[in-house]
């Protein structure tokens, strides 16, 4: 079977998922299976087929599983968002369409994605600038103690870090392709640690500084952790030096410790993480209310969950929201509540499969830029999932990043489809048969 036919068959689970999911929500809502649920399933199947045809036409050799895995996540996401807020699900569906258009656009515009290398400094500057936008008075949005988004008239909130992460990965892939040899061999060894030449290491220090600055200026620990983690992952893969990672982590830990003890907002997040069930923190502003209720929601889920559409998000008969931001930050808690441990683990497994396919594309790529690009894109998805799921499950302090392809959010959906397009481009090039 050809790669594209395998992709087509692999889309079946996603379409079944979206149909079964909507049916489940409808049964719960009205005890009647409405044909609207089947319509939703059909529309999403149509969109997925459209994307599949684009891939078939333009990237015939690309990995056949990347897109179906994303389709499964996105279809699952739209069901979850619909279940939480049907109006938001409609907007999410629109973003889904826009995301697929940009997905196709990226594939067509960057058939030879290596030309991105030419613009690497432009890309990194734009990325850093838009990262800072939420702090600009007048357009920045302040949410739950952090500057996460900017207001765009007619579009609502726009989260630049979702796009900046791709830009930074492109830059690093290109930069490390050029300098990775020098970073390893050109340095001097002091006390057994290779100190790379400052000229080449400088830009990486800049990224470290940016990650820290994001934390200080935007109070956005989640994005900071995500970008910095992506940086370290790529640095390690490019150089093979664990020492870089250790030093990098130590530097980050030092910074995080300083901020955690000196910045009120960050400190509060750490306190909430350590003592979510402390009644004083629970009822405090920026307190542990969200994380504690997320954990209560997970506890109510058990092994099998309470069922689609059964999670209690608003106290019955009141306007009292039990879980703040259930469709974005806390969506994993809602998943664990409704589908239980098995459902939540299934979602994590789908992410792991996606990441594995991304790494596979990196491994079989024939040039360093492609390898580093695919590695970085996959790693940053992995880290983003870890940051938000880890936050919701109290592995690390809770910070607001989206669960890729599942959470509600236009920026997230669109950016991640661009990310997918780049991964498919790399994969197609890597799997293309040699032509002599």
């Amino acid at each position: 079977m050809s790669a594209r036919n395998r992709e087509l068959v692999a889309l079946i689970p996603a379409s079944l998922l979206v149909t079964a999911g909507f049916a489940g929500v409808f049964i719960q809502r009205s005890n009647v299976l409405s044909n609207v649920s089947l319509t939703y399933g059909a529309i999403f199947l149509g969109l997925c087929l459209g994307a599949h045809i684009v891939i078939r036409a333009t990237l015939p050799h690309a990995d056949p599983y990347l897109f179906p895995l994303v389709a499964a996540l996105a279809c699952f996401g739209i069901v979850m968002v619909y279940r939480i807020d049907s109006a938001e699900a409609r907007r999410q569906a629109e973003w889904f369409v826009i995301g697929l258009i940009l997905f196709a656009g990226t594939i067509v515009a960057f058939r030879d994605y290596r030309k991105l290398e030419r613009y690497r400094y432009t890309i990194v500057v734009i990325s850093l600038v838009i990262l800072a936008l939420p702090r600009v008075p007048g357009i920045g949005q302040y949410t739950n103690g952090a500057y996460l988004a900017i207001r765009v008239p007619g579009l609502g909130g726009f989260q630049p870090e979702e796009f900046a992460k791709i830009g930074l990965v492109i830059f690093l892939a290109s930069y490390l392709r050029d300098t990775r040899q020098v970073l390893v061999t050109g340095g001097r060894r002091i006390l057994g640690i290779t100190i790379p030449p400052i000229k080449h290491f400088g830009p990486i220090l800049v990224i470290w500084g940016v990650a820290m600055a994001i934390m200080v200026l935007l109070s956005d620990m989640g994005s900071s952790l995500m970008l910095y983690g992506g940086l370290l992952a790529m640095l390690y893969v490019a150089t093979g030096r664990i020492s870089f990672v250790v030093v990098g982590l130590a530097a980050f830990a030092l910074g995080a410790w300083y901020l955690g003890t000196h910045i009120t907002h960050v400190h509060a997040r750490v306190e909430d993480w350590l003592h979510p069930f402390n009644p004083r923190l629970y009822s405090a502003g920026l307190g542990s209310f969200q994380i504690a209720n997320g954990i209560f929601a997970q506890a109510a889920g058990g092994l099998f969950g309470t069922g689609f559409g059964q999670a209690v998000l608003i106290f019955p008969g009141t306007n009292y929201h039990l879980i703040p931001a259930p469709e974005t930050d806390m969506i994993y808690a809602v998943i664990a509540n409704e589908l239980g441990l098995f459902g939540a683990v299934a979602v994590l497994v789908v992410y792991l499969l996606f990441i594995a396919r991304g790494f596979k594309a990196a491994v079989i790529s024939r040039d360093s830029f492609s390898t580093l690009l695919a590695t970085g894109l996959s790693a940053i998805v992995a880290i983003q999932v870890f940051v938000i799921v880890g936050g919701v499950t109290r592995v690390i302090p809770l910070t607001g990043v989206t669960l890729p392809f599942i959470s509600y959010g236009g920026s997230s959906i669109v950016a991640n489809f661009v990310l997918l397009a780049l991964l498919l481009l790399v994969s197609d090039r890597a799997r293309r048969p040699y032509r002599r």
Partner: protein
Amino acid sequence: MTSQIVRLFTLIVALFALLVVFTTRWTVIDASKLDNNTLNRLTLVTQLRIKRGRILADDGTTVLARSVPAGGGTWRRVYPTDQLFAQPVGYSDALEGQAAGLEQSDGGDLRGLQTGLDSIFGQLTRTRTGDDVYTTLDPRGQRAAAQALGGQEGSVVALNPRTGAILVMYSNPSYNDNGRNPCGPRAPGSCFNRATQANYEPGSTFKVVTATAAIDSGLYTPDSVIDGRSPIMVSGVPLENDGNQNWGPQSLTTAMINSINTIFAQVAERVGRGTMTEYMKRFGFYSKPPLDYPPDAIRPSDVHSLLNGRPLPPASPDEDIGRIGIGQGGVSVTPLQMAMVAAAVANGGRLMTPHLTARVVNADGVTVKTVKPTVYSQVMKASTAAEVTQMMTKVVEEGTGTTVQFGGISIAGKTGTASRGAPGSGLTEPSFLAFAPANDPKVAIDVIVDQSHGGYGATVAGPIARAVLQTLLSEGK
């Protein structure tokens, strides 16, 4: 770079495994602990979403409590009989986490038990419906008790001596269990259930206990003659008969018929502290009656120190056993306990465990639990019971209890009139203990009225007992 990518992927798998571990921790390992966390409102929502079962009277049609939708898939309780059954039925307010009465003690049945399979597949059913609780309470008897009390503070408890089924449990003042926070400090009415919680002096109704101990121990027969002069010295203090009447030598039966204090005081002293205490324990004194009712709303009947009002240990040397024998000397009872005394005599000396719940029926109409009569204790020999019954029957036929007679039914009873307030205030606490029909007892009853201006057990409590007995017997109880 391949080996680095493999190692990076290994790290990511390890990190995801950590996520799985923590998800498992919250969803499974710590789940029940988290469900019970006081901050967790989801548990409360779960409670509010349960359609609790109904509570019904013994006729199977009178609804004492039911659930009505309260929006958002939640339910709230309505009590159609309101004040009439508030004390035994109680109330349940899941939102405030409060409950009382049967709503509390039968809460598990009313919420419906969940099997392990239900908790896995339970989400398939939209509403979790609890079981219906059928009580032993008789609506007409309860209403008769409320009407007969007619606003006087007091309590009526009636039960079936053969089974221990409580037919009537009324305490006035009652409360409106449909109200918000009905037992709160500002709520009108009283959640204090006199039937199970009050601290009454039994007065002469206690002579039934003394007579039982005297005859069953073999020290006396109903025909034993004792000197009924008045006054006599009891524990160094003179004790008089009513009106200081000097009865001279009389049989124990005559002493019962005319409620002669000095004779029963002498009998109690001769029977002795140890034996008296033994019989009180057999009747159920000194322990909480094992009623299906919240234990914190049940008080054991016992003897209180006259010096400081605190409970005395059983058979304490500080007891004035002579006065205890006539229901004074610090004896402190609940109407439920005295109804159990009547029931034990009525049932041939065998005291049945009192109960309010008759059966539990699930939403499918299947009876999942039936409360079977169980023996609480063998208080006395059947022959003793027959002799005490004979004595009590004469109380109603020719003695202090003639006010209770009705319709040719033989009734066994005993009056009680304790004095209240300051000496010479003329305030009394009338009571009446009875069962009927005496030859085939169907109902045992105890009535206590808190306070009367000079009224007697026979004149104030007796008619109340008669009204309730009449109603219950006419129903064929």
